[in-house]
């Protein structure tokens, strides 16, 4: 049982947090607040799914901190240069993917250390982003993109759908395909995976490409939600995306993955922000409270392995 608790630490902590906030304020568990909460969690969920792939192969992707703004800025640039919404979206997703591919090539083919490669590309890509628009924001007032952020099918918002679909694809990939087995194996024991014939380099490349792709998709959501692009680095999203995965029960040493856990971890982090805002907790106590809840979730999961 202790094992099960540890395995579902993030979902359990999330439920506990929901109960606490529900008791603390009637404003929390309302349709409108839940809608807002899950919409704002969508970007982090999507990014975390990419990070999950990389962490599964025992890597880490710091470049997401500038890859998201990069993808968003490419959308902004292409849109303001008259490419039209569909082309701009495609360009943004492709831009994110390219960064992931380059990371993957450096890590897998050139055998460079994950942390340093993605730290380097975090920096390079943020420079490229600034260069692209001369450091300016771009406004994208596409009705489609705005609708993406605001509308949905009935009560189901497009943002949730995107997040759920991305998570479902990640889960399918990891647990229902050969590739998933190879991702888990490569992260679990690189040498053993290579010895049984798994193309570990291609697998690691794929993981980074997946993370880049997720950033591209998150970039679309970002532009949609922000009405444009912002070239500044998103260090907090970078740390949060890793935190979501680790809270979800995956170890940074690779070989294990939990899509449910990661999604719960991402929503958990966003719920904290939401709940503390509703409760009007002083901004000085807020980081303390966030930290304490994060530690609490880690405490639940400590019995793992």
């Amino acid at each position, binding site marked *: 049982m202790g094992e099960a608790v540890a395995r579902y630490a993030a979902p359990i902590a999330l439920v506990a947090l929901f109960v606490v906030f529900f008791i603390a304020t009637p404003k929390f568990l309302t349709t409108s607040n839940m809608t807002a909460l899950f919409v704002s969690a969508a970007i982090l969920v999507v990014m975390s799914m990419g990070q999950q792939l990389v962490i599964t192969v025992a890597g880490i992707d710091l470049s997401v901190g500038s890859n998201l703004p990069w993808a968003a800025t490419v959308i902004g640039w292409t849109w303001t240069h008259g490419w039209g919404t569909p082309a701009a979206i495609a360009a943004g997703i492709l831009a994110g993917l390219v960064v992931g591919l380059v990371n993957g090539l450096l890590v897998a083919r050139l055998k460079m250390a994950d942390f340093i490669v993605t730290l380097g590309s975090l920096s390079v890509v943020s420079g490229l982003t600034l260069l692209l628009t001369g450091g300016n924001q771009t406004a994208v007032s596409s009705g489609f993109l705005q609708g993406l952020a605001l509308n949905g099918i009935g009560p189901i918002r497009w943002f949730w759908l995107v997040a759920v679909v991305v998570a479902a694809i990640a889960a399918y990939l990891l647990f229902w395909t050969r590739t998933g*087995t190879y991702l*888990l*194996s490569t992260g*679990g024991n690189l*040498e053993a995976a*290579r*010895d049984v014939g*798994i193309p570990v380099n291609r697998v690691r490349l794929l993981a980074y490409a997946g993370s880049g792709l997720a950033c591209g998709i998150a970039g679309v959501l970002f532009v949609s939600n922000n009405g444009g692009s912002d070239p500044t680095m998103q260090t907090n999203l970078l740390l949060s995306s890793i935190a979501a995965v680790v809270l979800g029960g995956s170890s940074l040493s690779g*070989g*294990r993955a939990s899509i449910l856990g990661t999604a719960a971890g991402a929503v958990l982090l966003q719920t904290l922000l939401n709940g503390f805002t509703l409760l009007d907790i002083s901004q000085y106590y807020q980081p303390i409270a966030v930290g304490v809840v994060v530690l609490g979730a880690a405490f639940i999961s400590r019995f793992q392995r």
Partner: protein
Amino acid sequence: MNTDVDLTKPVAQDVLLEARGLSKSFDAVQALRHADLVLERGKVTALLGDNGAGKSTLVRCLTGVHPPDTGTIAINGKAVHFATPDESRRAGIETVYQTLSLIDDLPVWQNLFLRRELTRGAGPLRILDKKAMRTQAKEILTELDVNIPSVASTVRRMSGGQRQSIAIARAAHWGKQLVVMDEPTAALGVRETAAVESLVRRLRDRGVTVLLISHDMSQVKRIADVAVVLRRGTTVARREVDSVTPDDLVALITGAQPGDAGE
């Protein structure tokens, strides 16, 4: 060194694999020095040698884990260059490395089907046929008489012998042409060792060639047809097992008896 010995010529008409003049260095350590190895089709060849003699390195050169520094490898008379273990696998060579190559966090059945996963459906929607793999995994293990709690448990905490049994079962199941086993019974119990030995015999009966590294001379006597002895990275002797005693083999390994190529 006298190279004018029968080691360099084909030993039998029906040769599956022929490796000549393999050398391999790791920084300062020269693990292999012009080692030769000839495997006759359908026979069990034992590779013998002291610790650090280079047996595992030789195997890893044959199967594409390390590219050899010099030397040639031919299979069925055709030169091959395996850049990765995957290529050697596709050529029909299955290997139980000394490190066993198990993924700790995957369940037993997934380890057994690693890189040979069964799938259902077609195209990009092809999904893992977990049920079929689980069922077949149970059968494979039953055949080998392996004492394992459940095929669904991960191998992380399994005992040394359990792990080794899984690795052997995997190689034996998939090996069509050549099965290489690096000290396969080192951690095995009496019963399990007997099971592996009978498995090797069954493989031979199926026409599969076996290369077996072992430190157990009585085992070599029991199941091998041919013994090749490595000393400090060089092949020093090749013997029909029926024609020698265990003590002869030990003497060849330790150097008490000089071997064919001299030193």
